[in-house]
């Protein structure tokens, strides 16, 4: 578990590094899938984080609250969950690339 998490973090660190050079590595989900993901985040993540993402039992997911957190760690939290807290793993429903797309949108401006 720990190992796979580290590997995942490394993978994302690499992704971010490469993306930082101006190339996009993870393919963006297509428009229809983006719509599904937005709905998933607002409705289902929203049951703990709030439909407007201002927080509830789970913390707020607004750009201001996320700005100091590393994107790869956030994507890993979505994908693997966070043991010891109510945050479950969402890997049955989103791919790693989709998790990082969600994080990217959350950190900038999340669509409606």
């Amino acid at each position, binding site marked *: 578990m720990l190992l796979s998490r580290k590997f995942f973090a490394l993978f994302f660190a690499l992704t971010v590094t490469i993306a930082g050079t101006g190339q996009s590595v993870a393919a963006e989900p297509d428009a229809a899938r983006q719509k599904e993901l937005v709905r998933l985040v607002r*409705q*289902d993540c*929203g*049951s*703990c984080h*709030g*439909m*407007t993402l*201002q*927080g*509830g*039992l789970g913390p707020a997911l607004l750009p201001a609250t996320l700005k100091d957190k590393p994107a790869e760690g956030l994507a890993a939290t979505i994908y693997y*969950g966070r043991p*010891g807290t*109510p945050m*479950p*793993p969402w890997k*049955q*429903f989103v791919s790693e690339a989709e998790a990082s797309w969600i994080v990217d949108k959350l950190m900038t401006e999340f669509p409606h």
Partner: protein
Amino acid sequence: MRIFLTFLLSLLLTACAGPQLKGTGDLGLVIERATGRITLVNTSSQTAYARIDGLGDLSHASAVYSRDGRYAFIFGRDGGLTKIDLLEAKIVKRIIQSGNAIGGSISQDGRIVVAQNYTPGGIKAFDAETLELLSEVPAEYAPGKFSKVVGLADVPGNKFAYALFEGGEIWVTDFSNPKQPKTQRYPAGLQPYDGLVTPDGRHYLAGLFGEDGVALLDLWQPEKGARKILENYGRGQEKLPVFKMPHLRGWSVAQGKAYLPAIGRHEVLVVDVATWKEVGRIAVRGQPVFVMARPDGRQVWVNFAFPDNGKMDVIDTLAGKVVHAFEPGKGILHMEFAPRGENVWLSARDDNKVVIHNTTTFAKQAEIAADSPSGIFFTSRAVRIGF
């Protein structure tokens, strides 16, 4: 002719001017979570009779009623507290009382409305007439540490019981003197996620997320402290992921037993409320969210967390098993029984409608259009302890 016309006109005016008398026992409301709107409904005609906009962020909103069932107090996620007149179908007063709220409750005497807040963590008491702030109790469980408050329930004696998610405690606050509340604290367990008071107002239960078990406080003998029931119900097995927190209320008590959602198991746990021992568990088709008894206690209806939130299972309490399993709509978020239980209203968020099913035949009787409906609250809650 002119006299006749005047006569007709006066008849018409009388008809208009005379107040149309109406009771409130068969009224209710549906939260439309995405649009900040509520729909007012009549459970006899099974129709919507008014819509009221401008209530802010209503995701996870809930409502309680004044004793006469005329006024609803709606607690919004954004800390909004709105008082609605169901007869005149209008907002009486609206305030923003906190940054992030999760629900509320109303006192035994109907004079105090209490909101439970996540940010800042604690509870606040308001005058039910004016919504003027009376007092507040910050959930400061350790110096400088504040907890989110969950499971707020009114209990006899103008008291309120609630639990602290981070604090791991049950608190009971006495508002006999509304401006100087007195609070007692009881250690409960890891991460209480919601709570309930039994319909007789005697026992307060806090469901625990961080461990297998439920904390139980006997409000008749609070000095004995909270004790753990259903300990180790998961038997050390790895939990299934929980994609939505279950909800607890006194509705889960039927026929001398409490039907409680397991955490991380696709089961409903059955507890004898005389001995508080587990007497059974019933396999269901997902992580239970609402486990609600029909008012006569013969049936218990169960809905589920994502991704099983299109399903519903109906338990027959005599047979002790699921007797009807169906898919009444997409995204079933909440249910409410007609006051005596002949039908049940289900909000199907992703179908944008409320569907009404007969609880004997299970057949669909009617539906009401609503934009992303979530909570459904009928005025019959006004007379129940812990609602």
